[in-house]
């Protein structure tokens, strides 16, 4: 006899460290002070959605370090975890270790425990179903700083429910072979205030190693290392910022703007991380070493095209 479920939902047994709904983010709102937000690691986001048969930019659950522990109630559906993540699937009588980039079926009563990311920061949990979410400016992305987006702009917590709407009818299991790159060289283009820094400071920026600080989140990544000396002015007239801008405040420690960054800032910009390296940058966990390498704009554009082609190839394999 088939049991007819009137509602399908996940109950959150443990929220995790910073678990949020994210999608492609918001556009054309910088001028009112609202950042892009959206997933930090775009490639893993696209792969997650493709692996469960969603449209590519459907909402997913993004987690940092430790993910959520979820219990499912409802009809069978597919889910997948992407990134470099350790997780367990608990069935009625047994428990298995999950593999990233493999979609799984989940049944009524099953649990998914996302234990941790491995030498990386962000992972993605995609569900083969429409999720019941509030959209603001065409995006469900949660910005916990401004309390914008679904879940009243707050991170997900234990005791909450994730309600599902329409479950995808195609429940074919899919997988793809993919290994996240762990190279710690990050390529940059010189910033608009590059010449505010001493020759020694410029050399330090482009030749020395920095360490990712614990004070890093979706807004920004702080780096520690040799100080970068400013010889012109440690402040500029406040002006716009974009993702990837590296500001150096008076203390000489660089800060890289990430997806939830403030839209305006007044510290000199020594460089900007190129688009092709953004997905990799955000995955550098506290304690990781970073070394910057300067490249030309035309090279950055070519490398990005290649990266996009590679992403398309991966998606086509699914």
């Amino acid at each position, binding site marked *: 006899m088939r049991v007819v479920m009137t509602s399908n939902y996940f109950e959150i047994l443990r929220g995790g460290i910073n678990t949020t709904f994210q999608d492609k983010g918001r556009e054309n709102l*910088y001028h009112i002070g609202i950042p892009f937000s959206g997933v930090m690691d775009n490639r893993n986001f696209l792969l997650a959605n493709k692996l469960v048969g969603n449209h590519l930019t459907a909402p997913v659950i993004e987690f940092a370090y430790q993910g959520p522990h979820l219990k499912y109630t409802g009809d069978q559906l597919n889910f997948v975890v992407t990134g470099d993540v350790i997780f367990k699937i608990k069935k009625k009588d047994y428990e298995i270790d999950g593999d990233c980039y493999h979609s799984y079926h989940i049944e009524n009563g099953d649990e998914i425990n996302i234990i941790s990311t491995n030498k990386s920061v962000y992972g993605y949990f995609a569900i083969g179903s429409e999720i019941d979410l509030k959209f603001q400016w065409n995006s469900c992305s949660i910005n916990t700083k401004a309390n*914008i987006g679904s879940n009243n702009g707050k991170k997900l917590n234990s005791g909450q429910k994730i309600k599902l709407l329409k479950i995808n009818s195609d429940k074919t299991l899919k997988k793809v072979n993919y290994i996240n790159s762990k190279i710690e060289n990050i390529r940059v283009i010189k910033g608009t205030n590059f010449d505010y820094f001493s020759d020694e400071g410029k050399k330090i920026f482009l030749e020395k190693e920095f360490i990712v600080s614990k004070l890093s989140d979706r807004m920004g990544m702080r780096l520690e290392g040799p100080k970068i000396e400013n010889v012109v002015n440690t402040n500029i*007239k406040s002006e*716009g*910022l974009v993702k*990837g801008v590296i500001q150096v405040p008076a203390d000489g420690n660089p800060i890289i703007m990430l997806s939830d960054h403030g*839209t305006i800032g007044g510290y000199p910009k020594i460089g900007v991380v190129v688009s092709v390296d953004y997905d990799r940058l955000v995955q550098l966990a506290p304690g990781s070493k970073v070394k910057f390498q300067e490249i030309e*704009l035309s090279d950055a554009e070519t490398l*990005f095209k290649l990266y996009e082609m590679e992403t398309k190839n991966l998606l086509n394999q699914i």
Partner: protein
Amino acid sequence: MLKNISNLGDAALYCDFGIQVNKATNLEVIKYFNTIREKKIKGINNLTPSYNKLIISFDLRVTNFSEIKNKIENLDTTIEQNKNNKKIELPVCCEENFALDKSRLEKKLNLSYQEILTKFFDKEYFCYMTGFIAGMPFLGDIDENLRTQRLETPRVKVPQGSVGITEQFANIYTFDSPGGWNIIGNTPLKVFDDSKERDPNLINPGDTIVFKKISRQEYESSNDK
């Protein structure tokens, strides 16, 4: 005038309107901002006007620096724009508990609080830009005798509605946020309202602001409270 266009990374243009920070320069920035918005140029996904700069972000999957630069250089900004700039009266209460930096300002500026408030309220302000946090307006210019630096140690939490001053500018904290501006009072009005998706900002670049001093009683009975 737009003096120079360079690239900010590989997915943004950095448009420089000169080193001067004044209304004339900023109006030029706003003119470009409005014109580009109305044009809806393919690939542009964000515009950030500030005092004397305009940053144009674009989707590198759709376009690139030289394409957008070419379009901006050939932009006709002489077309008459729809000017929706408003004049807004903003009530501010400067009584105890709201004027967080009253004694600091009295000392720094060597003026009584009464004198400070008289100079502050006796002026029209111009909105140069909004941002940093959602909807925060940067207004200017404040009276020359009221100009002072940020707090040496910023507050961890400035209450929503706080009106701050620093150097030649005033701002309003649209929600509880860290911040280092000198707080002279608090407005009961909702300056950022995310339930109004089409127009969440009460104040937009180019608008004129007049502050109106109100009592605590008027503050408490305001509709937005």
